């Protein structure tokens, strides 16, 4: 583990998570969640937990993003005020 890299990645994850719940465009929120999952996978790899990182990259960034976009295609893109 590299502590400085850990700090940068964790700070980025917190920033992306806050952005994902405050942004008003739902497609942007989905893309931010996708980036969140990828950064989470990087953190898992950096913690030498490759299996969990594989699951996070396959499910969180791949399948879950596709599901969320599929659900978004059935509703409106912009969150109501």
């Amino acid at each position, binding site marked *: 583990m590299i502590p400085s890299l850990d700090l940068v990645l964790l700070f980025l994850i917190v920033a992306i998570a806050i952005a994902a719940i405050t942004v008003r465009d739902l497609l942007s929120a989905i893309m931010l969640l996708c980036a969140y999952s990828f950064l989470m996978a990087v953190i898992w790899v950096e913690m030498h937990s490759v299996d969990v*990182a*594989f699951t996070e990259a*396959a*499910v969180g960034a*791949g*399948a879950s993003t596709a*599901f969320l*976009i*599929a659900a978004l295609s*059935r509703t409106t893109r912009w969150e109501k005020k």
Partner: protein
Amino acid sequence: MNTKNSEAGEGKERAGDVIVETISRLMVPFIQLFALYVIIHGAGGPGGGFQGGVIFGASFVLLVIAFGIVNAGDRFPEGANTAFMSLGVYIYAGVGLLCIIFSRGAAQFLNYGFIPLTTHFEENRALGMDLVEIGIGITVMAVVTSIFFNLAWKREPEEGGEEE
């Protein structure tokens, strides 16, 4: 993809993008090969039935996104998805029960070494593990594809008035 799906939900006619269709048609066999590698390699390294199944299902999702859900969705009927889901569970539970049956109740559920596939105990264990991983992969693949269809496919547009 957002507008594409809603267009494809309305009628059969849609203008396909030749780049997207060609690239996805080229990529899908490689994604599926990688998924099979992940499933088979899962016993000795990172990966396994769940991850490989998700990647395999994601290849079908890519195919459906590229070709439109009405055109490509007919290739994946609901009954086949359900059959694959239960087939995977049957493979998993069947391998587990075969261990008990072949050892006449001496071994536990999913104690792979007692299935007499080969003459060596360790080879039996490796092959049984692969069989169980394949079962998990089939179930997860069918579930991922089915969840995507249930979320995105607007079936019976005359009575599906739940949006907005």
